C-alpha cells in the first residue's frame, strides 16, 4: 500500500489527484501521515512517531489512522498493489 505516485500534495495541505481531477484539503497531521506513508513507513513506525509528538493514546490513534486511510482509499488516493515496505 502506498500513496499513488502522481498525487500532488502541497505544504498547505492541498491535495490534487491528476487522474480524476479531484482536489482535497488535509490538515497538518494528515500531511504528516501522508508524508510518512510516502516514505514507506509501516503503521508501527507511524504510530510510534505520532505518539511521541501528540498527546493521544494508542487506541485513538489507531482508530483515527485507519479512518483516515479508509478515506484516502475511498477517494482513490491509495494504490493497494504498490508496496514499498
Amino acid at each position, binding site marked *: 500500500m502506498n500513496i499513488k505516485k*502522481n498525487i*500532488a500534495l502541497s505544504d498547505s495541505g492541498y491535495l*490534487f489527484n*491528476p*487522474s*480524476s*481531477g*479531484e482536489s482535497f484539503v488535509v490538515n497538518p497531521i494528515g500531511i504528516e501521515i501522508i508524508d510518512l506513508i510516502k516514505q514507506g513507513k509501516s503503521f508501527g513506525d507511524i504510530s510510534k512517531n505520532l505518539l511521541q509528538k501528540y498527546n493521544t493514546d494508542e487506541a485513538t490513534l489507531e482508530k483515527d489512522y485507519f479512518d483516515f486511510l479508509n478515506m484516502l482509499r475511498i477517494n*482513490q488516493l491509495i494504490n493497494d498493489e504498490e508496496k514499498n515496505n
Partner: protein
Amino acid sequence: MKKKTINIAISGLNAIDSPGPGMAVARGLREAKSLDVRIIGLAYDTLEPMIYMHHLIDKTYQLPYPSAGTDAILSRIEYIHAQEDLDIIIPNFDAELYSFMKLEETLKKMGISMFLPTFEQFEERHKINLSKFGEKYDVTVPSNLGIYDTNEIPDETELTFPLVVKGKWYDAYIAYNKEQVKTYFNKISAKWGLPIILQEFIHGSEYNVTGLGDGKGNTIAAVPMRKQYITDKGKAWAGISIDEPELLELTHKFISATKWRGGFELELMKNQENKYYLLEINPRIPAWAYLSVGVGQNIPEALVKLALGEKVTPYSNYDVGKIFIRYSMDMIVDRKEFEKLSIDGEL
C-alpha cells in the same frame, strides 16, 4: 516576413448559457502564433453575443438556418466569399455540419477548405447509433433506444428509471417515470425533431475529452477534462485538465479505429466502480476547447493547418491541473449595430 492573412469563417457565435464553440475557436485562432487571421462570423440570430465582440470577430454575416437547404446556404456563402475571399470555414454547430459536409467538395472548388468528418464517421457516432458504435469499437456505452413515436416508449416494467431522454442534436432531460419520458419526448422533438434517444442513466462524475484527428488515424491533439461546475443545462461552467491514461488511450483508440477527421469531443461518465461509459461523441470542437489552448494544445490552430493541407506535428503533452472558469458579462451595444445587422444581414 509578414505572414499571409488567412480569412476564416466560423459559426457558433452564441456565447450564451449553453454556448456554441465560436468563442473558444476564435480565441484559439487569435492566439495562434503561426497564423495571421481575419475572422468572419457566421450568425443565425441577431443576438448572438460574439457578433458584437469586434476584438474577436472582424465582420459578421447572417446565414440561413440549415432547414433552408444547402442551396440557400451555398448561395449565401458565395456572396460572403465574394466579399471576404474566404480560405477556411469552421462550422461549429452539430445541426449545420451535415449541410457543410454536403457542400465540402463544392466549397473546395471555390477555394474554401474545411476539415470535417466523413459522412460515415458522422453517422456512425450519431447518438442513435451509439450502441452499435460501442460494439464495433469495443467501447463501453450505456444502453440506448432511438424512438420516433411515443407509442414506441417501452412499458414502465421494461424500463429502468431514471433514464435520460435526449434530442437528436441537443437537449437532455432525466425522466423518473413514463409520463415524464412522454413530456420530454414532446418537448425535445418539437424543437429538434426526431428521433428521440432513451439512454440508460449512469450515476457518476462527468469527464470530457477534446481532440483532433488527422483523418489518417493519428491523434494530433487530445486533452481530457473533469467537469467541476455543471449548469442546469448540463454544460461545464468550470473544469480541470487531468492526466488520465485510460481516457487518452480511449481517445487514441477512437481516432485510430475510425480514422477520425477533424475536431471532436468525447463525453464520458465514470461510475462508482471507476468504469468509464462513453455517452456521446460530438463531431466538432466543444465550447470548452479554450482549455486545450490554455494547456498548450491549440486545436483550432492545428485544425486550420490541416485544412490548409499543411503537415502538423502532433501535440505530445499539456499542462495538468489547469482550470477553466467560464463567466458571463453584459455588453453595451449601440442600437445602430443591431439595426445594421437586422437590415443588411451583415455587420
